[in-house]
């Protein structure tokens, strides 16, 4: 287990290093002049010169990248001021420390992702289980039709409809807002409920479809027949044997979906006007705020790569045939 963890973490470090290098190169080297890009459409030469000096663009690109990477772990002194340990530089747009902005924004995205995933895993796997149990019956058909619909809707379409229907008309749920956790704990839970629900809609259909077909497939396996022959009840076999077999694959699919969940969270944030990393990255791009974009990209990639390791470990935990070595 430990060896597996060390090896995967090393692999993750290499991947992240490559991603950071590619992103840095594309952001700060490929455009004819990042200083000009950061300066916007109306910009005088003095500003450009200042930005160039602040960014250290007079150094060669690999030196700049080295300074940037060292800064993340050790902090660095920049012309604008000192930038402490997880240093992603200063934002072009508002001259704030990028890390401060990010640590201010990430809780929304994290709660959206975790909450949404919890909902779509529960609903999806649950529906799939009932459909497999009730195979061919009315519930199964209704669930598969609902899955098809769920798979085909878009967050930016059902989000506004849900706001109108569930919060404006029926007044059941908050319309989506994200006050800071410490200032309004209850509000931050109720405010994110509707966005989490909407985010989960586009995902659960896939899980219910997959769970259903996996369970149907599992039920025809030899070990299931053996268990049934030993006289175990069909419900016990279904939930203890078949479910465990199906879960291993469901977890793999979840690992593949992680990046899509982050993508969905971005769209959800913009749809509901929430202030998370997703709306931050869109804002950063619209203002050509390269350091901010760079940081969001790196953090997003880190979260996904780390979550994938966790998913692989869970996979080995559920399926004892997989040995982590």
């Amino acid at each position: 287990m430990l060896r597996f963890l060390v090896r995967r973490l090393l692999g993750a470090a290499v991947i992240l290093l490559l991603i950071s290098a590619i992103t840095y190169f594309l952001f700060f080297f490929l455009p004819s002049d990042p200083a000009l890009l950061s300066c916007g459409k109306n910009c005088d030469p003095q500003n450009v010169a200042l930005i160039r000096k602040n960014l250290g663009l007079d150094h060669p690109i690999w030196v700049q990248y080295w300074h940037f990477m060292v800064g993340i772990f050790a902090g660095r002194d920049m012309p604008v001021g000192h930038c402490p340990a997880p240093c992603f530089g200063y934002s072009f747009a508002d001259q704030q420390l990028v890390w401060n902005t990010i640590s201010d924004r990430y809780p929304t995205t994290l709660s959206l992702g975790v909450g949404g995933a919890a909902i779509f895993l529960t609903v999806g796997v649950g529906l799939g289980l009932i459909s497999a149990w009730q195979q061919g019956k009315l519930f199964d058909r209704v669930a598969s039709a609902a899955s098809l619909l769920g798979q085909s809707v878009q967050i930016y379409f059902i989000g506004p409809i849900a706001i109108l229907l569930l919060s404006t008309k029926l007044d059941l749920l908050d319309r989506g807002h994200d006050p800071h956790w410490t200032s309004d704990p209850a509000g931050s839970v109720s405010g994110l409920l509707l966005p989490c629900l909407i985010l989960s809609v586009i995902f659960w259909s896939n899980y219910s479809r997959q769970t259903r077909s996996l369970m149907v497939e599992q039920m025809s396996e030899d070990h299931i027949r053996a268990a049934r022959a030993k006289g175990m009840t069909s419900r016990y076999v279904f939930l203890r044997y078949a479910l465990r077999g199906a879960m291993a694959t469901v977890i793999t699919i979840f690992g593949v979906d992680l990046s899509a969940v982050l993508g969905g969270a971005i769209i959800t944030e913009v749809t509901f006007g929430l202030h998370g990393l997703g709306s931050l990255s869109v804002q950063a791009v619209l203002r050509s705020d390269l350091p901010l974009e760079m940081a969001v990209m790196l953090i997003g990639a880190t979260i996904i790569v780390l979550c994938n390791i966790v998913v692989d470990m869970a996979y080995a935990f559920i399926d004892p045939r997989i040995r982590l070595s």
Partner: protein
Amino acid sequence: MFRSINDAFGRRSTLSVRGLCAMTSSTQAATEPTDPLPPGGDSGTGTGLTATELIGRSPGSLAWARFKRDRVGIACAVTVLAFILIAFAAPLIAKLYGKDPYQLYGQDRGLLNSYGIPLKPNGGVDGDFWFGVEPNLGRDVFTLLIYGIRTSLFISLAVTVVSVVTGVLIGLVQGYLHGKVDYFLGRFSDLMLSFPQQLFFIAFTPVIVALFVSPRDEEPTYVRIVALILVQFLLGWMVVGRLVRAQVLSLREREFIEAARLSGASNWRIIRKEILPNIWSTVLVQATLLLPANVTAEAGLSFLGVGIQPPTPDWGLLFQSGASYFESDVTFMFFPGIAMLIFVVAFNLLGDSVRDALDPKTVR
């Protein structure tokens, strides 16, 4: 298995050995009863006919026959074709309809109130403006939608074609050459897969735009379109590549490839005549999954404001203005929304039907 023997010896007559032909026909006859089609159901080739005619039924025509019997599949194919037709013929339709997507009808003709909301109920839908007028700017929604579908479909089709072709090429190279080339291309595809997709699209679209035009200049629309195609393609080819690689790896060890090699066929010929015909069904199914995903991704980018820029009509941009005006004019949002829902449902069902037709063994 039967299909591959058929490919290698029967239909393509790579080898004209009499015994092998007899074998082909006997295997063909053996497969016949398991085929879901009733005997002699669709064409003149029944079970009682001679061997030479039986060989004439290629896997492709079998799949087509199976597909034709799938009513849902046909309905979805018609729907999808209708969308593509609308996209192609958008200028013509707009001309017949007598409006264009850039004219501010609402403002010119006083159809909007002082808040920019259509005066008439239901978003200003009437005989003149079939789908109503857009809030604020007052453009015609019907032409906006058909031109928007045109932009989005064009971009997504281009992305799909380029990614599928690249994926097939890279998968072929990986599977056929294996060894070091396979290893490095595989790690490269792993690396591309670990980029957070949406963030990558958001962040790199402006970078690619900046490659073509300086940030100070006005950017032409086609630059945005090229940038969107490029950025989605960069992260779009890996899944197809992996699938093709896996298939080629298992195919290259099969007997009919060996037979072709022994009979002196060149690598190019083996790839073209023996391997490609066996992977195209996987590729086709994958392409039908990719296209709707690309359409929604492209629309999502425009919705976020980093894709196509106004005033160019785009499916995603309609959702952007829909989201800003949904509380005062909800009708407006439904036209692009329902259109996209129909499109994606039709495409998803079509994908299922295509898979069923190509591989009758799959059970749903």
